[in-house]
């Protein structure tokens, strides 16, 4: 009460009071502003490229051993993928063969993008038999990932020799640069450029170099919009049963 009365009776030091008040508001406001600036800038995800260019990554298995030609099965019915160029961006790794499980050499072809009418050149197969190809495993229609989208071998009941997406039925042809066979997709799968080193199929190595064709589904650029992979020099190949 004493305090209250004092304030009410003595003429208030209006200007002093206001001055300190303003200084206080400045200080608290500065804190709030700094906090808001950090917070707002934080929740907008970084849009710039996460990577400055396509990294060259060695394909390795879960133990860190390089993937050799013979460690990949021809016409493997399982789903074999690796992340590239960013985390959670799966890509198919296929060793293509004919119905007798003989390697099929894949030649570079020009692939059309139905949506734009544009064309790009698919790199063709890598390795001693030119039979190893890779592409983004994110469906270009609405972004389904394996196991919804997967390669069907020649022993499958349907879509044999094709990549088919169960979400809405898009089909791609890995023998022809992952071109569109049936819609609804309007874009082929982005092709992965592989390079092959070594001559012994039991100890040779494969490197992922870059992507050609359309941009990975829902991305503005292949190098942004995600988190970097844990390693900058290698990416792990995993096999799952579809």
């Amino acid at each position, binding site marked *: 009460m004493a305090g209250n009365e004092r304030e009410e009776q003595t003429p208030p030091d209006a200007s002093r009071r206001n001055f300190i008040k303003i200084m*206080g508001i400045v200080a608290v406001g500065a*804190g709030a502003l700094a906090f808001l600036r950090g917070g707002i800038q934080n929740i907008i995800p970084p849009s710039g490229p996460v990577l400055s260019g396509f990294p060259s990554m060695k394909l390795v298995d879960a133990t860190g051993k390089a993937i050799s030609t013979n460690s990949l099965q021809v016409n493997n019915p399982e789903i074999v993928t690796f992340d590239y160029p960013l985390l959670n961006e799966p890509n198919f790794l296929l060793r293509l063969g004919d119905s007798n499980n003989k390697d099929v050499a894949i030649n570079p072809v020009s692939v059309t993008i139905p949506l734009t009418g544009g064309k790009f050149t698919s790199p063709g197969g890598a390795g001693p038999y030119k039979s190893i190809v890779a592409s983004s495993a994110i469906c270009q229609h609405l972004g389904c990932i394996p196991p919804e989208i997967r390669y069907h071998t020649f022993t499958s009941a349907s879509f044999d020799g094709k990549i088919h997406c169960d979400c809405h039925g898009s089909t791609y042809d890995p023998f022809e640069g992952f071109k569109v066979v049936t819609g609804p997709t309007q874009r082929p799968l982005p092709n992965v450029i592989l390079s092959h080193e070594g001559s012994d199929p039991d100890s040779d190595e494969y490197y992922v170099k870059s992507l050609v064709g359309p941009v990975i589904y829902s991305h503005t650029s292949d190098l942004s919009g995600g988190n970097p992979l844990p390693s900058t020099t290698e990416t792990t190949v995993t096999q799952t049963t579809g």
Partner: protein
Amino acid sequence: MNEPQPIPRKVPDYMRKAGGFMFWTGAMVSAVFLYEVVTGLILLFYYEPSNAYNSTEAFLNTVPYGSIILTTHLYGAYAMIVLVYIHLLRNLFVGAYKKPREMQWLSGILLLLLTIGVGFFGYSMSGDVLSSDATDVGRGIAGATPVIGQYLTALFFGSGTQLSLFHRLLAWHVVLAALIGIVFLAHFFLAEYNTIMPSGKDSGERAPAIDHDDGTYKQWYPYNLMYMLQIVLYTLGIIVVVPSILAVVPNVPALFSPFPQVSATSPLAMSVPAYPPWFLLFIYKELDFQFAQGLGPFYATVFFAGLPLAYLVLLPYIDTKASLKLVDRPITVSFAVIGVIYLAILSAWGALEPGIAIANTVVVLFYLVPLFVVPAIVITLSNAIKTGRLKNPYAGGIVLSAAFSGVTAFGLGMIVVSAKGNYTPGVIAGLSIVGLLFAISLLFAVGLFTGMYPPSVRKEPVPVSKNTYVAYSSVLGIVSIVILFEMLSMPFGNVYDQSLYGIGLGFLFIIGGVMIRLYRGQFYNE
């Protein structure tokens, strides 16, 4: 029971005086909780359970201000746990668990458990080595639960894959945080309903202690609001400044580093000692006891953590006497002190000697010595004070500081015993810290006892001229503008730059708190 009063209630002036902050430990916990909710929701935008460790590292390194948010979220959690313990001890010592506040006490115990739980799950989410060690201990305890062990493991830690593990951790972290919010509301409105725990002078140190407005209480607005804002700003300032400073200092030990350690799957993981979060070190150490290893992790936890918990839950129904005086409650006081001894020493022990088995003889010594020595000291002192043989206005302080020096002396002994002549730098550091605390508390107790401290002549506060206030405030105002300008013009860059931003931000909060203090001092006469 209470005269109807509008909520929020008015509170007595002494709560806003120097030293009154002990009445506001709950407010500090709430402030930190709020901060945790805000930063936690921001983190939720970025956390990917499928890539726990990598998404955490990416948030830290590539998202603007990610490092401030992540490190202060962690340190806010630490601060919240420490403050919850302080809040609990304060209410234990003033007897706030007594009639009519039993429900408040019980909901508080529930909040303690939820806070530790939410901290455990949150800590485990980063997927670094420390977090996976913590998950392993938790899994071990849950899995060893009789009959329902495997269901509990599945419930809390998922089906065994990494994805389901981190998904569950995230879900539990959010669920428990939400539960804290709900129980907190109940706890808070009970506090409003039962009024604040009045000072001993007002209540006559007898339960039920109810605060009555004698007509002199100032309005809630602006007096209380301003005071609360001041406390909130100080608290936030500290939880932002501390981790930001730790982030730029080199060689912070893993246990207190504000950053995640290496990934659990990295080959470097072997070089990091297996620590759970420091607030669970005590449970972790108990599992190292020889006979606890015979019991298995579940029964050991039930025994070591369950007993004190049961005691806390039953306390309002055991100690039903009306007196709130410390000297009338020697047993409660002793148990509180013993609890602190066990908690502090077990934690330090776990940090210094992680995972080293402890022989039964040492365990028995560790548990029995305080169990007999502390009550003996406390009861003797209380009787001396009660019968008037010991007349000293600082009796409570003497009992507490004597007990505390006992704690630390015992801690010193335990460190020496368990070091077995092997004085590693860690042991030396532990010895010197505990030794320093021992010396200080002993000096304090002796000083109070002999009347040397505090000096009996209280200094009259020097009236500060009004212009001084103006000068102070303008200096602080200008300083804060300068800090803000520096922060805004600083290039946004690496974690180091962000930590500097964090330090600036923390100081802005603290300056804001000081300004309110000045304003209250000048115009509210407080």
